[in-house]
């Protein structure tokens, strides 16, 4: 029983410390790490999608369709970025998406 109480207190204390540190230090490491994670999140998705452009000819129609959908889903997230990053990555994403759609259309018309 004592062990359980001690465990609960520890968890609560850790959670409180985390909340306080975020509130007191707005630019602290936790927040930065969170932002970095969110940034990496869209970038990782972008890279994972556009990684396939060079072998797009070997993809199936279903894979191409899925990649086009993923591009469409990623676009609003990139639109929220800062101006420069938004401009660069919207252009890059558009090129990837258009290529996948192009290959898909050409395969469907074969």
């Amino acid at each position, binding site marked *: 029983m004592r062990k359980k109480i001690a465990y609960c207190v520890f968890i609560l204390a850790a959670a409180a410390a985390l909340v306080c540190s975020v509130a007191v230090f707005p630019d602290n490491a936790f927040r930065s790490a969170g932002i970095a994670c969110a940034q990496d999140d869209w970038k990782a998705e972008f*890279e994972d999608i*556009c*990684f*396939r*452009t*060079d*072998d*797009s*000819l*070997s993809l199936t129609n279903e894979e191409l369709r899925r990649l086009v959908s993923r591009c469409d889903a990623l676009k609003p997230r990139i639109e929220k970025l800062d101006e*420069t*990053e938004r*401009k*660069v*990555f919207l*252009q*890059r994403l558009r*090129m*990837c998406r*258009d*290529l996948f*759609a*192009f*290959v898909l*259309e*050409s395969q469907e*018309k074969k």
Partner: protein
Amino acid sequence: MKKMSFLFLCVLVCAGIAAAQSQSGMKKRRPLPYEYGKVVINNYSEKAGFASVVFDHWVHRSKFTCRLCHVDIAFAMKGGGTNIRAADNMNGYYCGACHNGKLIIDKTAVFEACAKKLGGENGRRCERCHSQGKNVKPERDFMEFASRLPKERFGNGLNWEKAEADGYIKPLDFLESVSIRKPALAVPKEMFFEPKGAEMPDIIFSHKKHTVWNGCELCHPEIFVSVKKGSRKYSMEEIFEGKYCGVCHNAVAFPLLDCQRCHSKQV
């Protein structure tokens, strides 16, 4: 007297033709080898009190593939189409992706593009790009660079393809933290196109030659939108207007005057 009148008439006719051509803008001066591929960018420069930026393709294409700049760095295919701002460069995008004072090319750090503080050393640095109408000595001399490369008749007067094949240039296709590592490129087969004029040899289009510098997405579908071979006719008029092949082959890559480099099927 008759001879004099004839000469006068000839001079008059020539002057008339020249005047008509200059007014209609029909005849353009062919750029000199070092000028071929030059792009002048003035989206914001003059408004901000700077000279326009002069971008020489020959310097950059000797070091980087077209794909690296126009896909990974996202430069538009039309001069001024990117709307580059100094802030973009300072944030490490566009020119700033390489011109950051850190990237090492040929054992030298690539100079930093744009700065918040002007004057002094920064002022001189600005002029390296903002050089339109200024007497700025370029760091790299075209004649010296070109002297050791295989020659061609038109454009820069160089055979870039052979220059790479012979190892004179090794254009980078990957930039750390900018490019994505990708699997090997799947290259489609060569294509043959029959020209409209029966007197011209067929066109051999090599996907391999083009993808090695451009990848896929630089051309498809933005420049070549057609999804099925033969479903679209490409006219030389449109190409000369800067469409299709003319996007590159009238601006940076070997020009359209070099007929037999495309109309190359043996007859």
